[in-house]
């Protein structure tokens, strides 16, 4: 854990949390039809919401090199 960068920790923490909301027994709290959102049952909306959050997080992870320093940045630091 101590070798994770803060950014990496945030990204992986966010992913773990999103998976937890989708796949832990907590999903049974969302296992209902009402309240419907835009005509869709609540369970479907819950799944779509966390699917969207996690997919967006994967995109953030891509743009930030999954929280790891770019090799070029590391080399530049070493040269300094």
């Amino acid at each position, binding site marked *: 854990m101590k070798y994770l960068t803060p950014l990496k920790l945030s990204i992986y923490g966010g992913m773990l949390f999103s*998976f937890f909301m989708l796949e832990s027994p907590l999903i049974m709290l969302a296992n209902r039809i009402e309240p419907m959102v835009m005509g869709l049952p609540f*369970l479907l909306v819950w799944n779509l919401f966390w*699917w969207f959050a996690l997919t967006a997080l994967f995109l953030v992870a891509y743009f930030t090199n999954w929280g790891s320093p770019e090799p070029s940045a590391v080399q530049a630091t070493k040269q300094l």
Partner: protein
Amino acid sequence: MTGSLLIIAAFMIIPLMVGVLSARQSQETSEDFFVQGRAMGSIAVFFTVAATWWSAFAFLGSNATFYTNGPVFLTALAWNLLFGFMYYWIGKRVWFLGKRFNYLTPSDLIGDFYNSEALRITVAAITLIFTVPYLQIQLTGGAYLIEVASGGLIPFWLAALLFYFIIIIYVWIGGIRAIAWTDVIYGALLFFGMLYAGYYISTQVGGPTALFSQLQQTSPDHLTMPGPNGTMGYPMWFSLFAITAIGAFMGPQIWLRMYSVKHGKLFNLMPFLLGLAAFAYVGSVLSGYSGVLLEPNVANPDQILPIMLMEYAPYLLASLIMAAGASAAMSTANSQIHAVSTVVTMDIYKRYVNRDANQARIVYIGRLSLVGFSLAAYIMALTVPGVLVTIGIAALAGTAQLIIPTIGAITWKKAHPTAALAGLWAGVACVLLMTFGPLSAPFGYHAGIWGLLLNAALFVGLSHALHRRDTAVVERFTQARYDYDAEYHPERLPAYTQEITNSANHQ
């Protein structure tokens, strides 16, 4: 009818043309035939991974599950994300080691790290035994769709035979390159076919909003777990999530798609792309649930989508969407046939029959294996009955067991061959006994989950208890892991210094 037959003909001929075109770039080497010389580009990688991963199980099985068992298949959104995450986290490491040590099969990596022939043979056997049933359901699903789309003019046996011949021809001439190119077409067809089929069919009941409103009135059990039959609660929700993603990811066809990648950077993007593609399951939600209102008494739920298409969509549109479904089957079947032929050629023929085989001979044996396994799958498609999802999950539960020794090989220097072997055997035995034998899986979780737990417990426990003597192998992999982290995760390098310090203090 003529239009439908033309669509089916195009569906059969286009892959052949693509195969011939791709063969122009092929070289007669095993590395080119099996992993495209480890130089597959980003577009091909995404489409071939997505199309291979999405199968008849996704196209037909998803609709059938919403239709019969309610919302449990919604967990597919999460299992796609898990699959994407594993492709990045595990796949990139497997790719790196594959490139460094010239691996082509799962047995290559696991057998090399654990330095064990018994483990190598076990892994090869698991990949072969559990991939063939999954291959059979692809042929069954695809052939059924062609039969329906042709209005019965092409019977099931002939449709499956056509599948078999076409796959053999283009894989024979183009290897994995031909598969990847055809998968670009199949993948696009599959994605839009699933979404459009769902949307179109739901318009027959007034659109998505009206669909859910009517379902809430007439069959509310379909909208919440455990579904109308009362059998698909949380345990199955979690089991499907874990087993489907891990089992498919550990299939030999996906291993080849890790080894084939040209640049490591591509792995970083794949979770996002694969996650995004999962939106197509919304189409399955709509078509499966529409079936509950429109066709409530279909005997074989796997047929609900084709039946509704033929009943409610214009004939040409129905044929086109069914061709998309057949694409799902074809794109998985071609990859599986190619992958099992790779395992037979490299793990059995090259290692135990003819160690000195030249490149041309290896490719030739690979092609012969294509024919053999396609034939086996064809015979099974004609003779073994079964529901797509049931057979699919049982097969995936078997290959899922490989995840434990794989994670050990890429991350843990203490991972012990005896522990890996004991864990694998126990995990597979657990799956078989609980699926086909006298034991029943406790608490409603699938046998594959219990297999994984037993497998992991034995693996970790025995690895802590035993000590490896082949330090040269362990050090070779430690060095490779260090090089991997130096290139992609430089923030982890102090961990290695700490490890050396701890080891010195311990001594």
